[in-house]
């Protein structure tokens, strides 16, 4: 029921406005950026060494003068080591993951901090660094935040929610988080649990279809759900919203833009008048939706991105020239030998294709699951859970899961069919493409996306998407796998280097 409907989204999306100087990214520039610059090097590398003077003697102890064979000039050289170039240490200031601060400096409660560390977040990402001080400041202010896929948006609003709760009222709903699909809601629920694992007395509940029994009260501080279910629960008075402090919409553009979901969100908002802070997060905010978003979350701080900043640089984007639609499967099977792959997601257009490929891959010994709209809610939860825990390594799905799903081990996304929108699929769907490939390369990791084209239509569509975002797509050939393997390796390598370089 909560399927995103790409077609209706597509009809109403307008292209982002042309770039202009005023729409510079990250509008609320914190003055700290400049003032703290002197200490970048110290902060970024998690300094562990002693001050420099001692470092020299430490170097002595470690390097033992074995330099002659390497062209050095003897023991004398061993008394110093070359410091890492500053630009390497501080990282790329334009990277969405770049930051100069630590979570401690952002003033986050230590119990929450522990949870963050246990999830292996070491430093705030750019969006976290920029948004968190505004988000957790008093009095609460609304926020509309845009940041690339996999840059820690969820963690940012979860930290905010956890910082706002009154822990003396464990059964009183105080924060509500809405997501467009049950999978995403479940995922956010998981993030709240992880980040909040050391927070005493935290209670969380999911409000997705089938999760709350009829007549039972919602008795948790944090409620994560889909708009329809939440609306029903409030109407049936199972959900007391009188002390709701914070409302958060993930994938906000997607929710506000769809007829059904958008209305439901609005209704929910009207039913919680006491709410003090409304947060909207997404990787994409088409302009028209943005206007609506600003009404939904009035006088909000906003953090926006330019269009050409939308793609994540860690994702190597390639395309495969397939001989025919039917020939795609053989090629798919071969791809897995080209590179080391953790988990992977294959996006297809039709449910039947999904079932088809999954049957063939299972026959070939892959651990595969398929998810699409035809599956029941609880079944979808358990299938996705299998994928998340790594019991199955390949997920085949339709656009249902194009957005938001965060499985960090996903290292390859395949567009088995190029995403299309409009009547009779006449136009390429650039937003969906972006969200799909954003399932890999999470939090600055390296990921690969490979799109399959086989005829003129699919080729042109992909070209248009590439032009839209200014991506250079690399062509892969199926004739000589040795060469293809080399190309893939080199592309991955350059994107690795790219994640750390000034290359916008």
């Amino acid at each position, binding site marked *: 029921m909560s399927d995103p409907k790409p077609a209706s989204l597509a009809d109403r999306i307008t292209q982002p406005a042309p770039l202009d100087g005023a729409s510079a990214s990250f509008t609320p520039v914190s003055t700290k950026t400049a003032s703290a610059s002197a200490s970048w090097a110290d902060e970024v*590398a*998690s*300094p*562990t060494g002693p001050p420099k*003077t001692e*470092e*020299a*003697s*430490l170097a*002595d*102890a*470690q390097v033992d*003068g074995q*330099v002659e*064979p*390497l*062209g050095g000039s003897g*023991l*004398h050289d*061993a*008394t*110093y080591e070359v*410091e*890492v*170039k500053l630009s*390497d*240490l501080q*990282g*790329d200031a334009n990277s969405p*993951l770049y930051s100069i601060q630590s979570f*401690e400096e952002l003033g986050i409660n230590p119990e929450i901090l522990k949870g963050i560390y*246990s999830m292996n977040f*070491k430093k705030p990402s750019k969006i976290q660094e920029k948004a968190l001080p505004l988000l957790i400041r008093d009095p609460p202010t609304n926020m509309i935040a845009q940041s690339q896929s996999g840059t820690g948006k969820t963690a940012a609003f979860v930290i905010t929610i956890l910082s706002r709760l009154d822990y003396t009222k464990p059964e009183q709903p105080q924060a509500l988080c809405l997501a467009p699909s049950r999978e995403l809601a479940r995922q956010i629920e998981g993030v709240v649990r992880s980040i909040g*694992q*050391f927070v005493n007395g935290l209670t969380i509940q999911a409000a997705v279809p089938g999760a709350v029994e009829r007549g039972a009260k919602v008795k948790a501080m944090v409620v994560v759900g889909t708009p329809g279910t939440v609306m029903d629960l409030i109407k049936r008075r199972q959900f007391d919203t009188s002390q709701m402090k914070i409302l958060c919409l993930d994938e906000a553009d997607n929710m506000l833009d769809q007829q059904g979901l958008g209305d439901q969100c609005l209704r929910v908002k009207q039913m919680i008048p006491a709410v003090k802070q409304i947060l909207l997060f997404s990787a994409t905010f088409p302009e028209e939706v943005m206007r609506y978003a600003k009404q939904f979350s009035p006088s909000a701080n906003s953090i926006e991105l330019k269009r050409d900043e939308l793609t994540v640089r860690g994702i190597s984007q390639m395309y495969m020239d397939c001989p025919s639609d039917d020939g795609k499967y053989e090629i798919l099977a071969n791809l897995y*030998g080209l590179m080391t*792959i953790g988990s992977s997601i294959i996006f297809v257009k039709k449910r039947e294709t999904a079932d088809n490929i999954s049957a063939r891959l299972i026959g070939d*010994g*892959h651990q595969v699951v398929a998810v699409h709209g035809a599956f029941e809610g609880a079944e979808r939860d358990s299938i996705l859970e299998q994928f998340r825990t*790594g*019991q*199955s390594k390949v997920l085949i799905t339709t656009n249902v899961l194009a957005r938001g799903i965060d499985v960090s*081990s996903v290292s390859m996304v395949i567009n088995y069919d190029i995403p299309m929108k409009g009547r009779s699929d006449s136009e390429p769907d650039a937003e969906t493409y972006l969200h799909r490939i954003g399932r890999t390369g*999470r*939090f*600055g*990791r390296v990921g690969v996306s490979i799109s399959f084209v086989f005829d003129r239509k699919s080729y042109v569509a992909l070209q248009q998407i590439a032009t839209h975002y200014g991506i250079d797509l690399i062509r892969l050939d199926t004739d000589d*796998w*040795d060469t293809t*393997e080399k190309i893939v390796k080199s*592309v991955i390598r*350059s994107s*690795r*280097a*790219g*994640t*750390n*370089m*000034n290359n*916008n």
Partner: protein
Amino acid sequence: MELDELRLKKRAIGPKGTAGGRKARRIPKIPPRLPTPPPPPVQKPRPSQTPAGQPPSTNTPSSDSLKPQPTSFGQPPATTLNHVQQKPQQQISQPTPTPNPFSQPKPTPNPFSQPPTQSNPPATFPAQQRPAQAPPTTIPAPTFPPQPTLNPVQPVSQASKTNGQKVESSASHLLPETNRLLEIHGNLKRLRKYINAGLEQDPPFKKQIGNLRRKLKPPLGQLTQNSKQNQREKIVNILLESLAIPNQFGLCDPAMFMLDPPEPQEGARYNGEMPSLFIYFVSHFAKAVVGQWAQEASTKPTAALPIGVAAVSIFARPDFLWRGKPLIDILLAKIRHECPVIFGLRGNEKTEEGRARLGWKREKGVWFDEQSHMDRMTGLGAGYASLCLRDFSKSTMKHPWPPTHYWQAIAVIVSTPPNETSSTQYTVLKALINENEGSFLKFYGSAARAALRVALVDFPSQAPKGNVAAASLQVLADQMAQNGGLRVR
């Protein structure tokens, strides 16, 4: 090539203006600093010092590579083969450590620690103790099996990428197998080069081998907790095939790829030499295993386990033994190269040399960003643990790399003096322990608990304030207390 050009072009037209920008921001190499006065001469060299964490009862660092070499600097030392056979190491055959060193009643004194003063050997001391380093230029012509002129000590591959890098080998804290593994890694590299060069001459055969080689990765990627047998068989079949394919590459001596080459054994399937092509495939298999760990276990530590289990069982398989011994050192050599801190290497993350020593990778001269590096280290730490902590007590086979090496890896990290520690070490240590505390306790009982206390409480508490990697190590202790009820504090 073309790809790079495209990317460069893109950079050049980017809004911030920046391929050049990057260059401009790069700070020129710092001129040699005036040498700081050498540290006050420490009392005396201690050649017999026990390496960190080695239970005192076991052999002292008898590693051939640590012994003084009679050869002079420019001259290539004896051949690999002789070199190895003359001085076999005892590391592998070492039984599980005797419990006495660990069974102290109070865990408070660090069971690993040496007095901190011992850890810095005087600067002059190692110069005489170091093994001769071969000049980097003498890579022999691509012929394999080796000519008698082969150098046992190859130029350190990671070193050769960095200018002015110094090679780590002095320190008494290095585990005994450390340097030999680097040689094995170099030997494997040359073997692959030799075979690749040969394949270039024969395109159809190259295609056949390439296709077979590419079949190694998918089954590794498909391993899960549940259905591993099937995938493992696929890999075994590929390796078996590589033993059988007729080819021009001939045989090579597996001793070149072993820490402690065994004597011929009666009834062993292979007592003489083995097909070079087989070693080539095993080497690619090892690379694939390490790659899979680095890729997958970096974000999902539990994913390391099925890979480790498969690797151990494939190496231990009778078909692939040489003189009755598994060729697992090929995998260890790769791990040694990718994650040196497991074997005791230390370095300062703020210096080029320090990073190189720690196995911090770079691409086109640019260091991997911190997150990628730490991810890799996490995956490799988890992988190493999954390798060591296998229980072979019910098996007829012998554990090719028993848990004692796990203990040593932890020991060698926690015995790092506070001023030499690095985030890399904290990260690897966390990965070694995370999700493995159960097996660790099973093998070592209360000694493991004492070790965990040192690793998760004492060691990170000495970290510089604000070190996040150390903080997350401490959080692991809380997590264990909360989830499994294991209190180490």
